[in-house]
């Protein structure tokens, strides 16, 4: 039970961490995060991850084992967050249109067209 809770908290921790990163913030919420909010997200991430590790220590009382187990949990949680971000980013993409930040190369246009075909 505590193991699952640890995993979930870890997921939330990584989600907060991703919002503190400009690139992922833009994908999920649009726009760059203001400096103060970035610090806030990062603090929340650290707190959640620490809590998650504390719970892992409850499940595996030996410190060395707890560390290796928690790193495993972190891998799974981070993977879930990455998949979630991709889902959200894909939903947002059609609304935003072309990204101005990247130089639009002709292949990129073909790529988006091909993806549009697939989605349809």
């Amino acid at each position, binding site marked *: 039970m505590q193991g699952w809770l640890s995993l979930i908290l870890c997921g939330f921790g990584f989600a907060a961490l991703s919002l503190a*990163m400009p690139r992922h913030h833009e994908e999920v919420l649009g726009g760059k995060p203001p400096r103060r909010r970035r610090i806030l997200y990062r603090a929340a991430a650290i707190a959640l991850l620490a809590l998650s590790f504390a719970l892992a220590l409850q499940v*595996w009382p*030996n410190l*060395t084992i707890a560390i290796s*187990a928690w790193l495993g949990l*972190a891998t799974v949680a981070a993977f879930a967050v990455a998949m979630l971000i991709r889902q959200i980013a894909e939903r947002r993409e059609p609304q935003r249109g072309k990204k101005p930040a990247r130089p639009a190369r002709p292949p990129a246009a073909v790529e988006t067209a*091909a993806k549009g075909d697939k989605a349809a």
Partner: protein
Amino acid sequence: MKTGFRQSMAWLHTWTGLLLGWLLFAIFLTGTIAYFRSEVTYWMRPELHGQRPAEDPAALALKRLAELAPEASSWSITLPDPRSPVLSVSWSKPGEAAGRRGGPVTVLDSGSGEILHPRETAGGEFLYRFHYELYGLPRELARWIVGIATMAMFIAILSGVITHKKIFKEFFTFRPGKGQRSWLDMHNMTAVLALPYHIMITFSGLVLFVATLMPFVIERGPARGPAPPQEVVEPPPPRPLPVLTPLAPLMAQAEATWDWMPVGRIQIGKLDTAAPEIVLVPLRQSVVTVQSGSGSNGVERLRFDGLSGALLDETGRPGASAVAKINMALGALHRARFADTGLRWLFFIAGLAGTVMVGTGLVLWVSKRAAKHAKAAVKPVGLCLVDRLNIGSIAGLCLACAGYFWASRLLPAEAATASLGRAELEIAAFFGIWAAAMLHGFLRPPARAWTAQLGLTAALLLLMPVLNAVTGPSNLALALWRGDMVLASVDLMALISGLAAGYAAWHSRSKAARIAPPRRPATVPGE
């Protein structure tokens, strides 16, 4: 021409990764499956399925040992555990040196105590040994080869972190359906999300090979004198079996001593003397800093007087130097010797990430260069060679592993030829399929070969629960119903991997379809 630090690291990453990538993929895949080697071995021996364990298997085993081997000088009982629901016993006769495992192992039905005759199988043990000793090569040579591959892996990880330094900025990035870009994302993501695991498993793997790779660093301990002359023991006159103290209270005491780690093995020695003794061994080691020699349950022991049940002595975690402890911890971490089932899954997932990382790295090498030569009429020989070797060593190995599971169940239980035992036949099937897949990769157009091999792998994996039901007494539904989670989880994992392989096959097929008509403009130069 820039030849900065990152460029040279990129060069190093590319070429160490490519040269040993195929071997590393095989090491990663078989090693990852080996986290569940006792589960795999159990799945492969249907004679053991469908047992209904008794309330107290230890007492049952004792009763059966008294019937089977009343004259023995020592008994050994391995109890069913969550990873391998098998009750087995062994014994040795008076006058024989009581080995660690005693005489030949007899498997008992954990419910009725009947003797079971499971088939001979190479089981998960083969995959486990293959991942560090390969097969059919002299042991030292094979360990050198794998050791060098491990070193290359270590170099590839370190140079990779420098080369793909964007991985930390794009920590959670995966963009599918974009050709080479997606392969790179997948390579980066599987690398960075399990990076602590990759470093740990590679470094500890290197440390485990240290005796092979640097034989001169091993400082021999105090030289062992010549073995004391074996005392010639007159077999004592047969005496009636001593009445042993009940086991249950001793086991409870042991579990309390070991922080609730269950007892895994019971050894009863000196049965032919007036002072028999009972030794209890924990199921797993509860700390990482103890010696975890392959196959043993660590070194913790509790020794009891067999008649009164009094605790005689306790061998625990011997004091060791910090260096020795780190060495033992690395060994234990690599072998996950302390891991319960939940933790084992986490290691398994991280191992899969490593497998995917190596596989996508190999594919990436090809797709990067294919993009460069997309317009050329004749592709470089090296590119074609790597492209085709990738098929056999990635898809082909997956196919061989799936086929190995099938061989273990389809070969008749008594199958053996004049020169090969049953286990060797299973291994021959594994390598036969792998070799055929390698050849197939060179004969067919690459895109089609990928689809065919991945598709066949998917079919074999998805049908594994059916194979299990048809060739054994139990099946997935029954196993779930009875709580035989070991059997059920192998079946379920086969289904999940089958779906993944099917998805990969479908993906490669649609890619092949896109490439096939030559004048479709949809083929992106990036692919």
